[in-house]
């Protein structure tokens, strides 16, 4: 069982963001970056599938500047066998450009399974996984909340509004992983030390000129301050009136 897991380095989700001087990206000063949460689920799933199969290899891929090596080493400290950095100064917003670079790297790798997070926390675009599947001409399941591999076939579950879908697919395949599928393990302290000795290859990313760019970012407007209409039962009439006429929620 040979599994590729494609991960992204994103700002820690508890960061308070400011827009940077270019107005089209966040100010990265003081922002802590880590493996994207969804990518973390994908890594955990990959490791569990390998453990269940009893043998195989899990390889992590990430596109980005050298700082992404820290995230790849984190994946290796969790148990991933080796990692590949596709080096570029900045990760383009254009998901298809990223997918092409990844597909070119993945194609000769003969992976049985290629995993992604269903989307990344920073852009929430969700393009790269599906586009990579298309470029590799592989079946694709998005946002899997359960994934099993047996007898050369995959079985996945997807959560829908009020129901779930059960899917079956042949291998090789691309699957993007939803949150909550498995709790990512803590990198053990020995794992952190072992990761330093695992192979991490770095090669230039084959990136075409991006066809989509971010031109601006805006923060949501500040919430207006609350207003106290009155106190006790006497205020109810006024409150209901305002909820109907002003807030228009009733």
């Amino acid at each position: 069982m040979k599994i590729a897991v494609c991960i992204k380095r994103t700002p820690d989700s508890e960061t308070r963001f400011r827009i940077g001087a270019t107005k089209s990206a966040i100010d990265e000063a003081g922002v802590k970056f880590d493996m994207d949460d969804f990518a973390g689920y994908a890594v955990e799933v990959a490791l569990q599938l390998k453990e269940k199969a009893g043998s195989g290899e899990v390889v992590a891929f990430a596109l980005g500047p050298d700082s992404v090596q820290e995230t790849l080493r984190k994946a290796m400290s969790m148990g991933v066998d080796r990692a590949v950095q596709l080096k570029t100064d900045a990760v383009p917003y254009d998901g298809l450009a990223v997918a092409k670079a990844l597909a070119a790297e993945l194609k000769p790798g003969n992976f049985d399974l290629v995993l992604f997070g269903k989307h990344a926390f920073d852009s929430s675009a969700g393009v790269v996984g599906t586009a990579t599947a298309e470029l590799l001409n592989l079946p694709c399941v998005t946002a899997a909340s359960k994934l099993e591999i047996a007898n050369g076939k995959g079985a996945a579950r997807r959560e829908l509004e009020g129901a779930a879908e059960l899917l079956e697919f042949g291998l090789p395949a691309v699957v993007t992983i939803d949150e909550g599928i498995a709790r990512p393990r803590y990198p053990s302290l020995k794992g952190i030390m072992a990761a330093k000795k695992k192979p991490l290859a770095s090669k230039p990313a084959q990136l075409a000129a991006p066809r989509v760019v971010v031109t601006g970012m805006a923060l949501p407007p500040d919430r207006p301050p609350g207003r106290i209409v009155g106190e006790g039962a006497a205020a109810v009439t006024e409150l209901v009136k305002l909820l109907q006429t002003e807030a228009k929620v009733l």
Partner: protein
Amino acid sequence: MLDFFNIDSQLSEDERAVRDSVRRFVDDRVLPIIGNCYVEGRFPKELVPEMAQLGVFGANLPEEYGCAGLNNVAYGLIMQELERGDSGVRSFASVQGALAMYPIFAFGSENQKRAWLPKMAHGEVIGCFGLTEPDFGSNPGGMITMAQEQADGTWLLNGGKMWITNGSTAQIAVVWAKTNGDKSERSIRGFIVPTNSKGFKARDQKGKLSLRASDTSELVFEDVLMPNDALLPKSGGLKSPLMCLTQARYGISWGAIGAAIACFEEALSYSKNRIMFDRPIGSFQLQQERIADMLTEITKAQLVSLHLGRLKDAGTYTPQQVSLAKRNNVDMATDVAREARRLLGAVGILAEYSAMRHMANLESVYTYEGTHDVHTLVLGQAMTGMSAFT
């Protein structure tokens, strides 16, 4: 998390990775249960396998004995994060690593190291450390516990120890005893004693108002027969257990920072949200002074421990420097915990908040591993060249 002087930038990638892994463990597994454990007076034993899996026990000992082989800064950061959870949880790891595994590593035979260290790193064997006696705390050289060598090379142990963390949980005790009737401190040797040996009794210390989420016991030895290979062959004199304490105190200097950070973060958050006189209390000068003082003292302590860790990794640190760090940082943490509790007002007395739990815990930390006062005299002696102990 408080890092006013960007200490992160002085840490290596591994050190940060280790810290972040333990931090997440403490957030996910310790903080949700520790308040209740404290109220119930229960050490959360269920966390031991997970802590072992993570690799925190003896994490700065070599990989060939099943340990993580980390440097001392990474080890210190582990202690910091564990004590951000609770001093009792950190104490468990300190005792297992610095006081039970370290003496086996430093004074044990190769056979003893191979027999015990991997099992202890994996949490399959829990250890405790028996030095202090009911009448000999700050003066351990006066101990009366005695081991007598028999004609066949076995040993008979008699005496007792007190204030022993993990005492009733442990499978082995590293016991320090005088030997063969010699009452001088030169005769002190270390022994690995299985706690199920005949004549070995451990009794829980009842009525603690501090370190309630930690096992503390009294040990009694009545003609405990120990095989020849119970002796730690390279131990000799009071210096041996004191070397273990230096290891543990080093970790404590980091741990105290963790407890202080927990109190600081809690107080800061409360100060921004608690409204009094129509304003957050954090907008009042009195609370801002508290916050500024806490921030300053924690930051100084962080720099002390980080630098001490670098010296320890370089092999150039001294026990007196460890005394300074333990003394300063624990004293700092007791002050921070008390001020945080006061800032919290009435809710500060609840177990739901952490400040008063840390405040009570830190009184033990202030007293154990060399009391604050004893470290004062260590530093006084280091500066003047004159001992004030006797």
